């Protein structure tokens, strides 16, 4: 056993650090580290920069323009990016659709879509959930009926993240209403500019229009935009959801938030002393740091296991549950550290207020509210526990 990074991995990490030090634009960095709000422009710009320097997709194979890094290196890359204050890379194209295209897409589809995902030219969104189909995704009702060389798609999708910026959507649709639910689903790639698509924002509890309802009315989709075979979409969707394990725990983001928490707690005062010196608060800080440390090594342990070993399979669910819980716990502590100031929401900026030297604390309450989503989307924590009990414990 040796729990130190290998010399190769250390060298890799140093290259990442050197790249970030010179190429991450200061304004983006500052926005990410201080703010908690999402900026679409930053995401686009950053993906462009990554791409220009060959870091566009560290997890992709070299033949598709990726860096073909090991799982540990992928993990290190994300960690360093998060700590340095880089914006997220959009998962929908890079982590979800990309690998599906590589595995199941036609060469034409691969050549058409993958380079534009890598460069950030195309913004993809995910059209799975429907009002009646959340956890029970296979009950989805949006239909696609073939008519010559097109499908005609009708239905409604919901909870569609950042679809307002999207150029394309990958959509699960029902192509056979008579088969068992899982057997009659296909995966279609749909241009968001196609007539018949209506996008309506859903405002979330923190006041942001982060997700959308999408109506599809007689939307014509070329048959060539179907992935793989008709009625095999469920297989592809499952592949897509199960693919990601290097960064599902969000260790990088949690470490960044832990640092934010320590900065905030050192600055905020309570009862005459900095919050960080308050023994009760310190204990909770220590506890969450321990939980994060454990998750970090659980994550590394799983990433070091051979890719097709059983422990790699169950990894994703454990990492997702604990990762979301720790992120949420950190957001709770940030609110606690703010004290009464956390009550202030959607504040009108005031130049002379004492709290105006703001390091993003105005957004911390909103972030706490918003991050409740982490245990709901992408397979809720209850569903993840069902998966663990079935696959790991065999219940």
């Amino acid at each position: 056993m040796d729990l130190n990074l290998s010399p190769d991995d250390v060298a890799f990490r140093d290259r990442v650090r050197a790249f970030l030090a010179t190429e991450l634009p200061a304004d983006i960095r500052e926005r990410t580290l201080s703010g908690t709000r999402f900026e679409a422009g930053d995401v686009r710009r950053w993906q462009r920069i990554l791409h220009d320097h060959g870091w566009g997709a560290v997890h992709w194979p070299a033949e598709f323009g990726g860096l073909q890094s090991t799982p540990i290196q992928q993990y290190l890359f994300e960690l360093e990016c998060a700590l340095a204050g880089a914006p997220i890379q959009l998962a929908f194209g890079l982590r979800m659709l990309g690998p599906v295209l590589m595995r199941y897409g036609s060469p034409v589809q691969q050549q058409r879509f993958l380079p534009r995902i890598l460069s950030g030219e195309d913004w993809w969104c995910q059209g799975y959930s429907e009002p009646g189909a959340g956890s029970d995704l296979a009950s989805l009702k949006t239909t696609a009926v073939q008519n010559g060389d097109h499908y005609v798609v009708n239905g409604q999708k919901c909870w569609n993240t950042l679809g307002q910026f999207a150029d394309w959507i990958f959509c699960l649709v029902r192509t056979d209403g008579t088969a068992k639910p899982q057997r009659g689903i296909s995966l279609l790639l749909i241009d968001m500019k196609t007539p018949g698509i209506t996008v309506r924002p859903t405002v979330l509890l923190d006041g942001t229009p982060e997700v959308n309802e999408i109506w599809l009315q007689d939307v014509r989709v070329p048959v060539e935009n179907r992935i793989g075979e008709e009625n095999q979409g469920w297989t592809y969707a499952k592949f897509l959801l199960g693919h990601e394990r290097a960064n599902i725990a969000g260790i990088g983001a949690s470490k960044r938030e832990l640092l934010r928490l320590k900065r905030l707690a050192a600055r905020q005062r309570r009862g005459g002393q900095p919050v960080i010196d308050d023994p009760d608060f310190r204990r909770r800080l220590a506890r969450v740091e321990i939980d994060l440390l454990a998750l970090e090594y659980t994550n590394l342990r799983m990433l070091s296991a051979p890719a097709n070993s059983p422990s790699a399979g169950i990894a994703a669910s454990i990492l997702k549950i604990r990762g979301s819980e720790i992120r949420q716990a950190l957001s709770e502590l940030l609110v606690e550290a703010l004290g009464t100031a956390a009550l202030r929401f959607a504040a009108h900026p005031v130049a002379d207020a004492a709290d105006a030297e703001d390091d993003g604390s105005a957004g911390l309450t909103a972030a706490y509210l918003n991050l409740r989503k982490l245990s709901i989307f992408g397979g809720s924590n209850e569903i993840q526990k069902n998966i663990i009990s079935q696959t790991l414990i065999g219940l």
Partner: protein
Amino acid sequence: MDFSFTDEQELLLDNARRFVAERYGFAARKHILASADGYSAAVWKELADLGFLALNVPEADGGLGAGPVETMLVSMVVGEGLLVEPFLSSAVLATRTLATLGSAEQRARWLPKLAGGELIATLVLEAGYGRDGHDAIRAAGDAGGWELSGRVPVVYHAGIADLLLVAASTGATPGEPDAVFAVPAGAPGLHLASCTTVDGQVAADVELRGVRVEKSARVGGDARLGLAAVVDYGLFALCAEAIGALDRTLATTVEYTKTRNQFGGPIARFQALQHRMVDMLMRIEQARSLVYLAASRCDDADGEERERALSAAKVLVADAARFVGQQAVQLHGGMGVSDEVAISHYFKRLLAAEIRFGSSDAHLGRYERRLSAG
């Protein structure tokens, strides 16, 4: 021992609930939240007509002189309906400040108007329970009167109040307010930076930059004991509000899980979710018991008994608020984080209840200092 409410109290509860059901639905509330004032003057008038604003005004001053149970019941309904009108700020905190500390002249001048809803007042004080607070407002006395300086962040309803009752320290104990001054809205040197709170109420950071008031503006003499009692009473009302919100949160969640179908039937049939709702219920019932206990102690002459009961209640209310609020959102799935569904508004109200009137740390600390010997 008797935990039941009298017939009159049941009637009060029914009236309050009927009012909320008729006048304060989700859409009506949304409209109020979006309005320029951030509260409804019409609703406020109706609350006055129902007598709710007179509960804490003594009979001698033209009010109802009701006891804690009445305030508790109305507060619970305020929480059930997520009212954003200043019941707690004006009809409990400010009203009780004047009733407890005010001179006969001050009471006669303001209390009838408060009871009638013609005047809105608020207490400017950071109820941090020693632990969470910043420095108090300072009051410097001279021959002509008093000069007030300092700042209190996020004072609920300060921006819509006609009268601000400013708790300040005259110097003897710098951190701890020992006096109250009546400052009219718009007084020179009074600066309000309005904001919306996380639970959608109007508030303001209140800053006093050398605000001058006359000697007669002082409400009572040494206000330390009186203020402590008034703030504990406000804490009690806040806890009762939270119980109302908690009840609705659980009921709404139970109802949702019975009607939301996934995998061929209602999600309420999953035992994982059933047990979660049982855990929610247990926390609410534990908190409710301590809020009832607080009702019987919040008027106590014995400050220690009162403080123990109130801090105990706040600790369990905060615990329930966090757990029940978070799990209610979780059990609603995506619906839980939507602004267009009531549950997220309960969640936010419960978060505010957790933060206001002292954190759990502060109240555990106060309880700890008063641990019973036996």
